[in-house]
């Protein structure tokens, strides 16, 4: 997990996405405790208010929940929620960027498709 300070997106968004990534990868399991906002802000060297903002997005979306005086935990069903959301964003986040870069490089639709196919088969090997 790291924050890219050059990234165009605000830091708090990156924090929430990093935590989501960790949940998706299984590093943070459902119903397990995640690092506190203190630990997050110290780790990334960011203002605690920023860390809190990132965490609160996840609380609002039901990805994590707070237990008073104990800490923050991954909600049951969080993986599914994140997966659904990410699938919806997939077109916007990846396909649009992919096609615009492809146009810049004058790659044809067919060339892209065969690259995607080889990407999938590499993954399997």
């Amino acid at each position: 997990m790291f924050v890219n300070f050059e990234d165009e997106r605000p830091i708090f968004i990156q924090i929430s996405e990093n935590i989501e990534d960790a949940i998706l990868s299984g590093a943070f399991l459902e119903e397990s405790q995640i690092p506190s906002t203190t630990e997050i802000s110290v780790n990334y060297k960011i203002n605690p208010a920023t860390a809190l903002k990132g965490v609160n997005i996840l609380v609002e979306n039901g990805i994590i929940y707070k237990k008073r005086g104990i800490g923050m935990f991954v909600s049951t069903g969080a993986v599914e929620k994140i997966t659904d959301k990410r699938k919806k964003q997939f077109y916007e986040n990846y396909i649009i960027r992919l096609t615009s870069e492809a146009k810049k490089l004058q790659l044809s639709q067919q060339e892209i498709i065969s690259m995607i196919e080889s990407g999938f088969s590499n993954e399997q090997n």
Partner: protein
Amino acid sequence: MNKIEIKGISKQFGNVWALSDIDLNFEENKIYGLLGRNGAGKSTLLNIITNKIFASSGEVRVNGENAIENDHALKNVFLMSEKNYYPNNMKIREIFKWSKEFYPGFDMDYANNLAIKFGLNINKRVKELSTGYSSIFKIIIALSVPVQFILLDEPVLGLDANHRDLFYRLLIENYQQNPRTIVISTHLIEEVSNVIEDIIIIKDGKILKNESVEELLSKGYSVAGSAAAIDDFITGKNVISCDSFGGLKTACVLGKIDKTQIPQGIEVNKLDLQKLFIQLTNV
């Protein structure tokens, strides 16, 4: 009520106005960045707040009380000065002991612990310390005194990358465990830009900007691309800076960007605090 209010502070040195008519509040439990070029008036302001020097006019109030010659008000404020005011022959161990005399709540265990973390030998005398360690022992004292307002004037002066990293981590940890107001004056803008919540930029003794970092950075964006494309794109927009590099051009623009109206070949990025600072404070 817990705040430092700076009202109409001016300071004249000879013919020069180091500060003119500064109005500023430091609110409770916030981390501020006080930025400005060399000679902008940052240290003068911090020294006036802590009654080390007198203002030519204006007043400073700490928690509602006038701070001038007022120990009761000033015991809530600690300034880590860029200069060394400690006796050169004194050992760090003794300075810790004296800090405890002046600030009974001084956390000796914490201070000793930090000294170990930074690798500071507390049996050394002030005059034996390198520039970096001179900053470090002052940082340790500042983090160990239990006051509401901590003013840090160039805290990372001379610190290597590892020690700066350690400092920022300790600062955030300390702030979370013991929320209070912290003001950091520094030239290393990039490093503090994510640590501070609000930013105050001083130029020629006046306040240029005083707002949250997020707000300031959301007020604009930067674009990069071919010179022709950028020139075309920025026409009619509020451009604060332009940089050319061969046929490439980068421009910082104030205003909101319509993400659906970005021409091909132009890359949009968020504003960078340091670049913005350089633009704003260039003569």
